[in-house]
């Protein structure tokens, strides 16, 4: 249960960081904004690890597969490309399209890691897509009515 709440909290934090980063990018520029974002994050996590007396050891890094280090760089690509693409399509579609990309890649990755395709995850994912589509339509009608 605690993990479920944590995963939902992750969604809250995603929106918060999108709103904050987009407003910062608007004022100082996309790449400068991302730079400040990473410096801020690095300071916070440095303080946390120092407080917990956890330190990076070279021996620990040697055994890690190289691809595992690429997540941080992918984050930069995602932030920069979102700042370009998301303003160009209505939010109702961007949420939906990004989710479709996420969920089906998620199913494939779970298959590669655990080597079984979960029918429940595919069916459940499709139902989630339906729900998002339904709410998108409600939003769209509301916008048309108000105009």
């Amino acid at each position, binding site marked *: 249960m605690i*993990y479920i709440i944590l*995963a*939902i909290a*992750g*969604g*809250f*934090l995603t*929106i918060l*960081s999108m*709103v*904050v980063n987009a*407003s910062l990018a608007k004022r*100082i*520029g996309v*790449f*400068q*904004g991302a*730079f*400040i*974002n*990473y*410096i*801020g*994050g*690095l300071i916070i*996590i440095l303080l*946390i690890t120092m407080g917990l007396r*956890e*330190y*990076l050891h070279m021996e*620990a890094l040697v055994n890690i*597969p190289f691809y*595992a280090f690429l*997540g*941080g*760089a*992918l*984050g930069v690509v*995602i932030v*920069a490309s979102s700042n370009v693409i998301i303003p160009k*399509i209505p939010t109702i579609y961007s*949420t939906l*399209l990004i*989710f479709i*990309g996420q969920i089906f890649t998620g*199913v494939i990755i*779970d298959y590669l*890691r655990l080597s079984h395709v979960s029918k429940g*995850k595919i*069916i*459940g*994912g499709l*139902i989630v897509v*339906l*729900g*998002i589509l*339904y*709410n998108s339509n*409600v939003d769209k009608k*509301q916008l048309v009515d108000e105009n």
Partner: protein
Amino acid sequence: MYRIYAIFIGILITIMVTFNGTLDGYLGNYLSILVIHLVGLTAIAGILIFKKIKPVFKKDVPLYLYSGGAIGVLLVLANNISFSTLGASLTLALGVFGQLILSSAIDHYGLMGMDTYKFHKKKIIGFGIILVGIIIMTIY
């Protein structure tokens, strides 16, 4: 065309969450985030140098706008911990559910300087459908 790029962003996000989750398995919750930020900062610094852009700090920007990095640390922490237990697809579905709830709240109350769009009761039906989907994903 931009819609295809949006799907592509979704694919990249899932790959990133998986890579970060793998790193988390080797280094633990906190040191993995340290490495993620070191790599990210190197990448963005490389882009700035390559594009010859100078980093800027403006004094008239409200302080909370500089908190994005701190929020990001909490976000990666929450994602990594739930990923190791719930797997990629369920973590993402629950995350989207959280995103929809908070963005509806922001729209309804016009929080953080956003325009106000009142919550439409009909949207409860959509949230119900999404919840059914998530429950199916959880059970199987």
